[in-house]
C-alpha cells in the first residue's frame, strides 16, 4: 500500500486598485497591453515602488492563517526566461519572506486536522501567454502584459495533506478565508486563485518522503482533485513495477485527463535568487501589524462556532452558512428579524439557495431581502401559511419583488385553519366517495392519507394539514 503526500502552493491575486510596484490598473479583462508602463514592461531604468496596500492585504492573509509576520523581510529576484516575464526576473521573496509558521484547520475523515503553512510571501505576477486562438498559433505565442506586476501572495503549505480530498478541503477553506478577508475575489477562471501541487507517494508507514513531482495548471477545484488522483496512481504504478519517480514539473491536461512532463528548458530550476537591489528591505512596525490584526473580521471557523452557540443551529447548517460571508450575513439578518433562526437556516439553505441557483444569482443579488424573508417565516410560524404554500409565495416574491403579504393577498393564499370551513369541504368529499369511507370504517386506516390528499387538492393546498387530519378523523368516525 502506498500513501500520498501532498503540499500545495497557492497563488492569490490581491485585489488592489494598482499594481504592486507601479500605478497601472489591475483591472481584469481590459484590451491587451493597455494597463502597462515602463515599470511593468521591464524597460531599462524603470524602478519599482512598493504598494502599501498590497503589504497590508498580504499581512491580513498571513495573520488569518496564524502566521508570524516577520518585522523585516526582503524582496529577491527570481531569474528565469519566459516571454511573459519582461525583465527576465520576477520580484519575489525568497530567504526572508513576509510571514512564516502558520496553520489552517481542515476536516479529514470526520476529524479536524491542522495543516501547516510554511510561508506567505509577496510577489509580482507575470504577464499572460496566449498559446491558442490566433491564425498563427501553431508557431507563435501572444503576450499580454496587463497582468505583469499585479500583486500576488504565495501561500505554501507543509506536505501535510494525505489525499486529494484533503487537498480539496484545504483549498476550499483557504479560499473562504481570503473571501472573508476581502483581499481577493479568488476567481479561478480569471486566474486570481491558482494552485500547484507537490505530490509524492511512499509505502504506508514509511518515515521518509518519496521523490516528488510538481503538478501545475490546476485551475479549478475539479482539476485539482482529478490531477492529484491521476498523479498518485501514476506514481504508485511506477513504484509497484519497480521503477523510480523522476523529479520534474508536470502539467495537467484537462482534455486528456492526464499529467504530462514538461521538457521545456524555459523552466530551468536554477533561479539564481539574489536580493532585489532596487527595493528597500520591507520593515513592518509593531503598530502597523497591530492595526492590521485589529482590522481582521470574524473568520469562518469562529463564525461557524458562534452560529451554533448563538442560534442553536446544527453544525452542518452552521458550516454551510459560514462557508460564505455574505450568506452568513444574510442568515443572521433574517434570524434577527424573524426571531426564528432554525426556520431561517432551513429556508435559506434549501429554498432560497435553490431559487437563486435556478436564476443564476449570488446571495448578494437576492431579490428577496432578509427582512422580506423574515416576514414570510413569521407567517409560516404563526400558521398563516403552510410550508408548501410558503414555497410558492417565496417563488412569487422572488419573481415580483413583492412582500409576502402582498403575494398572499393577490393570490388569496392564506392558510385555512378554521375547522368549520375545513369540515364543510370534508363533508362534500365524504358524500361523494362512499366506497372509500366504507374501506376506512372497516379498518383500512391508510385510506386516511387518500382523504387528506383530496382535501388538500380541493383547497389548493391551503388547508392546514394538521386541522385536516383531526377533522377527518372526527367526520369519518
Amino acid at each position: 500500500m502506498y500513501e500520498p503526500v501532498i503540499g500545495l502552493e497557492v497563488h492569490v491575486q490581491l485585489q488592489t486598485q494598482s499594481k504592486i510596484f507601479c500605478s497601472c490598473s489591475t483591472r481584469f479583462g481590459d484590451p491587451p497591453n493597455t494597463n502597462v508602463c515602463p515599470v511593468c514592461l521591464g524597460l531599462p531604468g524603470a524602478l519599482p515602488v512598493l504598494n502599501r496596500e498590497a503589504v497590508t492585504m498580504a499581512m491580513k492573509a498571513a495573520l488569518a492563517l496564524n502566521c508570524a509576520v516577520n518585522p523585516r523581510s526582503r524582496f529577491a529576484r527570481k531569474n528565469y526566461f519566459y516571454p511573459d516575464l519582461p525583465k527576465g526576473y520576477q520580484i519575489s521573496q525568497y530567504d526572508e519572506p513576509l510571514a512564516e509558521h502558520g496553520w489552517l484547520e481542515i476536516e479529514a475523515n470526520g476529524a479536524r486536522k491542522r495543516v501547516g503553512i510554511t510561508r506567505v510571501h509577496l510577489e509580482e505576477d507575470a504577464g499572460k501567454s496566449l498559446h491558442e486562438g490566433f491564425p498563427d498559433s501553431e508557431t507563435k505565442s501572444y503576450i499580454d502584459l496587463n497582468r505583469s506586476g499585479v500583486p500576488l501572495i504565495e501561500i505554501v503549505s507543509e506536505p501535510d495533506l494525505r489525499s486529494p480530498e484533503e487537498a480539496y478541503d484545504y483549498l476550499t477553506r483557504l479560499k473562504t478565508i481570503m473571501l472573508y478577508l476581502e483581499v481577493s475575489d479568488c476567481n479561478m477562471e480569471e486566474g486570481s486563485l491558482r494552485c500547484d501541487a507537490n505530490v509524492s507517494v511512499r509505502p504506508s508507514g514509511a518515515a521518509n518522503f518519496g521523490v516528488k513531482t510538481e503538478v501545475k495548471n490546476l485551475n479549478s477545484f475539479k482539476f485539482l482533485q482529478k490531477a492529484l488522483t491521476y498523479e498518485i496512481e501514476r506514481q504508485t504504478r511506477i513504484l509497484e513495477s519497480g521503477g523510480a519517480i523522476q523529479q520534474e514539473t508536470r502539467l495537467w491536461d484537462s482534455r486528456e485527463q492526464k499529467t504530462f512532463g514538461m521538457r521545456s528548458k524555459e523552466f530551468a530550476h536554477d533561479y539564481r535568487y539574489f536580493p532585489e537591489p532596487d527595493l528597500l528591505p520591507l520593515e513592518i512596525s509593531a503598530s502597523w501589524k497591530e492595526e492590521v490584526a485589529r482590522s481582521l473580521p470574524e473568520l469562518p471557523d469562529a463564525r461557524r462556532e458562534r452560529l451554533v452557540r448563538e442560534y442553536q443551529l446544527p453544525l452542518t447548517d452552521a458550516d454551510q452558512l459560514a462557508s460564505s460571508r455574505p450568506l452568513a450575513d444574510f442568515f443572521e439578518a433574517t434570524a434577527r428579524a424573524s426571531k426564528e433562526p432554525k426556520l431561517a437556516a432551513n429556508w435559506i439553505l434549501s429554498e432560497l439557495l435553490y431559487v437563486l441557483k435556478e436564476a443564476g444569482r449570488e446571495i448578494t443579488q437576492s431579490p428577496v431581502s432578509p427582512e422580506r424573508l423574515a416576514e414570510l417565516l413569521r407567517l409560516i410560524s404563526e400558521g398563516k401559511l403552510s410550508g408548501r404554500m410558503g414555497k410558492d409565495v417565496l417563488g412569487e416574491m422572488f419573481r415580483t419583488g413583492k412582500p409576502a403579504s402582498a403575494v398572499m393577498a393577490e393570490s388569496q393564499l392564506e392558510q385555512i385553519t378554521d375547522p368549520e370551513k375545513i369540515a364543510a369541504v370534508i363533508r362534500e368529499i365524504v358524500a361523494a366517495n362512499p366506497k372509500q369511507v366504507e374501506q376506512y370504517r372497516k379498518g383500512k386506516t391508510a385510506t386516511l392519507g387518500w382523504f387528506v390528499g383530496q382535501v388538500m387538492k380541493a383547497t389548493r393546498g391551503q388547508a392546514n394539514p394538521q386541522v385536516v387530519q383531526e377533522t377527518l378523523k372526527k367526520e369519518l368516525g
Partner: protein
Amino acid sequence: MALTEKDVRYVAELAHLELSETEVRKFLPQLDSILQYVQKLNELDTQRVEPMAQVTFTEASHPAWREDLARPGLSRDEPLSNAPESGGGCFKVPKVIERE
C-alpha cells in the same frame, strides 16, 4: 583554476547562449579570472558586519511607499512600438511550450 568547462556550459545554458567548443575554451580562463578578482573580497573579515540588501538608506529613515491609486499607463500603441513582431494588441513571440 577553479572553474571547469562544465560550469561554463551550464552558465551559458541558463543564459540561453549557444557556445562553440572554441568559445567554451576561450571563455573559461576569462570567467575564471573575473571570479578570482571578486574572490579577493573574501579576504576581508566581515564577521562583525551585518548583511545588507540595500546600501543607500534604511526603510525607517526613508519609507518608500506608494499609495494604492491607479493611474493610466502608456497609450495604446506605445508599448508595442519597439516589439519586433506584434498582432491583436499583443507581443508576438515564437511558440514556447513543449511537451513529452
